[in-house]
């Protein structure tokens, strides 16, 4: 939980303090009239002047705060207790209680709040005593909803299930696990209700349907001052200012509370992107479609920065598939996103070059990069169900890719041809389908159709089969392999699955904790790994004929807390003192293979 900023706490605290202390402060009585000095301006005895009955304005402001805040807090407290009880009971007991709780809330929500308040005031008559239950009724549904949602979330949590299995009673589970969990959102709801209640109370009082004169209330004061607006405009401004400042402070407090309860960290805009264009120019150019050198990605956080991808160098030739393989968090997806210029906001490239047919993608302005994306360089992402826009038809989404690069092309017809090419039966009809009307495998085929729409040179596939089941996986891999052969694509295949690598990749680059630790032809790497991490990874993959899989002891070090030496050393069984001394560089062997292990010869 982060801290709540102090200005709103201080401001609101001061208002509450003044309201509480109003009776003991050396102030005139709030209801004593002095008609001889009506509408008198500010004086030593009356700092803010006197109102239309000669009463002291400052006193009435402070007493008004007292009335407003106590009504708002009392109402919110009642709404909170009753609403949470209703929500928890509904969410926890289920059945008829749940239906009753939710439906009664729905009915309450059929009345606009002010209308509901007016209806009750009609029946019960105005006055502070009516206001409290009225406002409580108005704000009750909010608490019920928050509590109900919280209970639904909490009851599905493993530890609540566990307590139930252990035989804990419902009441005990409710008290011990669920109530503390919904505390944050309920607190936020409370602050929102209290702030809204101050507004509603003053509004009703302004209409003469809330607090009854001569009791002081900001709404009443504003209403009364309207009549003397021309003679004494200040009289109108004071309560307006008091009301606005109070609500501002309360709103700021609400925002602060909400941020404190919300686990998402605050956003910081990234700094300027700095590119080193010098190093690649000094090296001889290759014929590779993609030539990535020294790529380093940095993420800025409020507590400093770290580099989840460091000094990554790889290349892919035409008609070749390179698999970039590694565990979650190894930086393989960030690498592929950096190449396409689609890094999320907080991440940026700080060093390296990525040449696509000789053009450095990392040095291109966004507009030029955009023309390449979906054109010469295409992407397929992991989850086809979230990667397609749910509100547009799939044919239209393919056509959009075509039109973005070839505005004059017959996009709709081409889209159907593409759907046919990726193996979708009845393509003309399927083009009119929405993504949710297709299966997962079909959706990924649509994504592939989008990717190949403009005959790309480079296809980046980021875990394209992970979200699919095994048989569909095989079909999609076959399709990608066919397309690669047919069109001479360079395919960068990002995955964590070794069986998939074996099936599709010509060469493989193994990534660990943001670095490439080994690179080489797939068959050779699988047969004779030159890095202990690759070896451990291969042993951890299940194989029908070989020995049972072994796990790798330990975990991937977090990118902000890397070891000084070899990044794999803490988990490595072959660790030597030299491994911890300094970070080893990726070494290229005579046969073209690469490893960053210092001891590869011995092992």
């Amino acid at each position, binding site marked *: 939980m982060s801290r709540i900023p102090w200005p709103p706490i201080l401001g609101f605290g001061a208002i509450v303090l003044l309201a509480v202390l109003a009776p003991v402060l050396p102030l005139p009585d709030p209801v004593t009239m002095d008609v001889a000095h009506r509408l008198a301006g500010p004086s030593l005895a009356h700092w803010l002047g006197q109102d239309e009955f000669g009463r002291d304005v400052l006193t009435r402001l402070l007493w008004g705060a007292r009335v407003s805040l106590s009504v708002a807090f009392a109402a919110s407290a009642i709404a909170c207790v009753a609403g949470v009880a209703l929500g928890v009971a509904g969410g926890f007991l289920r059945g008829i209680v749940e239906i009753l709780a939710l439906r009664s809330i729905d*009915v309450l929500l059929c*009345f606009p709040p002010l209308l509901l308040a*007016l209806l009750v005031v009609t029946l019960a008559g105005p006055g502070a005593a009516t206001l409290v239950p009225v406002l409580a009724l108005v704000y009750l549904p909010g608490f019920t909803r928050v509590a109900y949602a919280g209970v639904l979330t909490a009851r599905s949590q493993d530890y609540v299930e566990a307590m139930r299995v252990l035989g804990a009673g419902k009441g005990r589970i409710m008290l011990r696990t669920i109530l503390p969990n919904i505390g944050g959102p309920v607190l936020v709801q409370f602050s929102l209700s209290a702030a809204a209640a101050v507004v509603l109370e*003053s*509004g009703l009082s302004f209409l003469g349907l809330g607090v009854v004169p001569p009791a002081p209330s900001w709404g009443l004061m504003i209403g009364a001052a309207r009549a003397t607006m021309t003679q004494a405009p200040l009289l109108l401004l004071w309560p307006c200012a008091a*009301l606005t400042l109070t609500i501002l402070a309360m709103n700021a407090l609400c925002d602060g509370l909400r941020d404190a309860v919300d686990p998402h960290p605050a956003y910081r805009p990234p700094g300027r992107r700095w590119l080193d264009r010098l190093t690649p120019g000094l090296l001889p150019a290759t014929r590779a479609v993609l030539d990535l050198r020294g790529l380093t990605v940095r993420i800025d956080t409020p507590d400093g920065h770290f580099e989840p991808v460091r000094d990554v160098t790889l290349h892919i030739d035409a008609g070749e598939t390179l698999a970039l393989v590694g565990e979650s968090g190894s930086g393989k997806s960030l690498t592929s996103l950096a190449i396409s210029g689609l890094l999320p906001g907080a991440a940026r490239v700080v060093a390296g070059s990525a040449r696509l047919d000789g053009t450095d993608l990392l040095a291109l302005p966004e507009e030029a990069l955009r023309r390449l994306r979906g054109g010469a360089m295409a992407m397929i992402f992991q989850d086809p169900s979230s990667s397609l*826009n749910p509100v547009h038809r799939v044919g239209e989404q393919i056509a959009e890719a075509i039109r973005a690069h070839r505005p004059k092309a017959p996009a709709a017809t081409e889209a159907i041809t593409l759907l046919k090419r990726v193996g979708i039966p009845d393509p003309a009809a399927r083009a009119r389908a929405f993504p949710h009307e297709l299966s997962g495998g079909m959706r990924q085929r649509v994504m592939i159709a989008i990717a190949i729409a403009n005959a790309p040179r480079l296809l980046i596939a980021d875990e394209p089969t992970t979200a699919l089941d095994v048989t569909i996986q095989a079909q999609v891999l076959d399709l990608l392999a066919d397309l690669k052969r047919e069109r001479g694509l360079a395919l960068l295949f990002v995955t964590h699955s070794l069986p998939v690598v074996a099936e599709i990749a010509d060469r493989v680059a193994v990534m660990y904790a943001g670095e490439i630790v080994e690179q080489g032809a797939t068959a050779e790497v699988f047969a004779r790994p030159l890095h202990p991490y690759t070896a451990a990874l291969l042993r951890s993959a299940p194989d029908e004929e070989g020995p049972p899989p072994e796990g790798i002891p330990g975990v991937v070090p977090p990118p902000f807390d890397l070891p000084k030496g070899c990044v794999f050393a803490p988990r490595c069984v072959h660790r030597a003192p030299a491994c911890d001394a300094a970070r080893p560089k990726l070494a290229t062997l005579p046969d073209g293979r690469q490893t960053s292990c210092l001891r590869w010869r011995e092992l």
Partner: protein
Amino acid sequence: MAWLLRRVGISLALIWVVASIVFLAIHLVPGDPAELLLSQGGASPDPAIVADLRDQPILVQYADSLWRLLHFDLGHSMQDDSPVGDEIARRLPRTLELIVAAAILAVVVGIPAGTVAATRRGSVFDRIAGWLAGLSLAVPVFVVGTLLVMVFAQWLRWVPAGGYVAFATDPARHLLLLSMPAITIGLGLAAVMFRMTRAAVLDVMLKDYVRTARAKGVAPRRVLVRHVVRTALMPVVTVLALHMGTLLGGTVLVEYVFNWPGLSGLLVSAVNGRDYPEVVGIVLVISILFVALNLAVDILYGLLDPRVRRG
């Protein structure tokens, strides 16, 4: 279309429940409703009505009131015996006009401002707009209205302090008189629209399908309009509609400040005079509109998001 029928069915059921609750609320107040009416002062009630309230069994009265409601008969005012329905029909369009004008203002200002603020997050524009929105949300409508009257009507004398002229009588003056209350309501609503749009756009910009659109090489403006704003608008439209519903009863304060003879003003005078038939009539009409508006939102949602139509 089963989805649509179900939604309409739920809405009708809600209206029935609301009507029943309003009826019960009047009759379950402790004591004899007739005596209550007399003892609370206000207008002197029609003896026939009092007799009805006393003599009929409650269930008969309930059935009777529902039956009359089905025929759009809301009874007669206790104050001047005029049909409640007629007065509501005369005033409702004025309130709706006010709400629609405010909503148009809010949409025109809030949605573009929210989109720009989201795309330039952390910029000077974002910060200033966010601060202004926070301020507009903190000032209650009747304070805004009163201050606008003081500045523009009393000091600068640009506009009249309030009142109403039918559009047919004097279109220019009608719009002039409409502008101040519409701006008063629109200001807070625009702040809500701004915040919602900004949050929704920021949220949608992180979606995978927006990344796909960018990966296709679609131009940024087109990505924003077709993929981001189109989806982001769904929650914004919902919130707008819900706020418009709240405004149906919430224009009371503004109508009062600007002397705008809408439905809410009638409600206040009815509440003050304890004119039960009138209060019940207005509450029912507004609640029914509110439910209908929610229904409209759901249908609109179905049109915007094809996934909803399935469920």
